[in-house]
């Protein structure tokens, strides 16, 4: 009986070490809110550009989303996340994506060349597929890799068919890979915290 208890205790210690090391390295699940925010921002920009026919729809929406993301991230930093090489690698991917999207869509919007919706949806999908794919491969995270695959499929599918069909594919990919994935990330994080509970000496 005592042997069983000791064995279980030793296994618990090993499991605690694994969990804590993973906890220090885990970052993307903490960013579930940002996936949801950007999903909503894409929907707003699409609706604005479709019904408002404004060249400013994407530049303005993306700029506001960037400001909100930076502000919330700054406020959440009250929790002061420590620096890790992995965290920097993942962060770099998303920052580079944000800069690329901001510059490209600002330039396309202002030059009035944001007219081919097929090309537009394919470009965004491919860029998001690249970012999600790179992040998933670094983190070895199957759920995020599934998102990358959906984006890559969307990048190809949006090149074909009528404009309406292309936009439906794009909207569905946003829903699955931004909003649903973001909510999944937030739920996973909350469950993990609840399951683990406090650690006593």
């Amino acid at each position, binding site marked *: 009986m005592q042997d069983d208890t000791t*064995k279980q205790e030793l296994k618990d210690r090993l499991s605690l070490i694994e969990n804590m090391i993973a906890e220090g390295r885990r970052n993307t699940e903490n960013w579930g809110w940002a996936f949801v925010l950007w999903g909503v921002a894409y929907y707003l920009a699409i609706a604005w550009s479709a019904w408002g026919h404004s060249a400013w729809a994407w530049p303005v929406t993306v700029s506001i989303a960037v400001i909100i993301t930076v502000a919330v991230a700054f406020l959440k930093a009250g929790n002061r996340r420590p620096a890790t090489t992995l965290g920097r690698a993942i962060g770099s991917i998303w920052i580079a994506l944000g800069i690329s999207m901001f510059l490209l869509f600002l330039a396309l919007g202002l030059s009035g060349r944001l007219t081919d919706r097929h090309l537009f949806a394919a470009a965004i999908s491919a860029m998001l597929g690249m970012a999600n794919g790179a992040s998933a491969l670094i983190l070895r995270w199957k759920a995020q890799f599934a998102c990358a695959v959906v984006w890559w499929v969307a990048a190809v599918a949006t090149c074909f068919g009528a404009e309406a069909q292309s936009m439906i594919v794009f909207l569905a990919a946003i829903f699955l890979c931004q909003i649903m994935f973001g909510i999944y990330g937030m739920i996973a994080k909350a469950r993990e915290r609840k399951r683990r509970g406090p*650690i006593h000496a």
Partner: protein
Amino acid sequence: MPDLPELNPVVHGRLRLALLSLLSGVEEAEFTWLRAKTEATDGNLGAQLLKLEGAGYVAVEKKFVLRKPQTRYRITEAGRQALADYVQALKQLLGLAIDA
């Protein structure tokens, strides 16, 4: 009968083990981050970190950022080695337990 490896008592405490494991995955961490991850009380966390510091397993740096005190901890080479040795000893003990 093979000799049983001894578990380092400084590393063996649950909270101290959690702290060393957390610090092994990051470059450095603040007290508030460690508290959020372990959900330990300030007093308990401070006491366990002091023990680890006393053993030379963690290094502490205190400074003021925007006039607010900030305490940062990082694992030392000795701490990293102690954690590695502890994991090795655990695995050896579990192996022996499974063999038995």
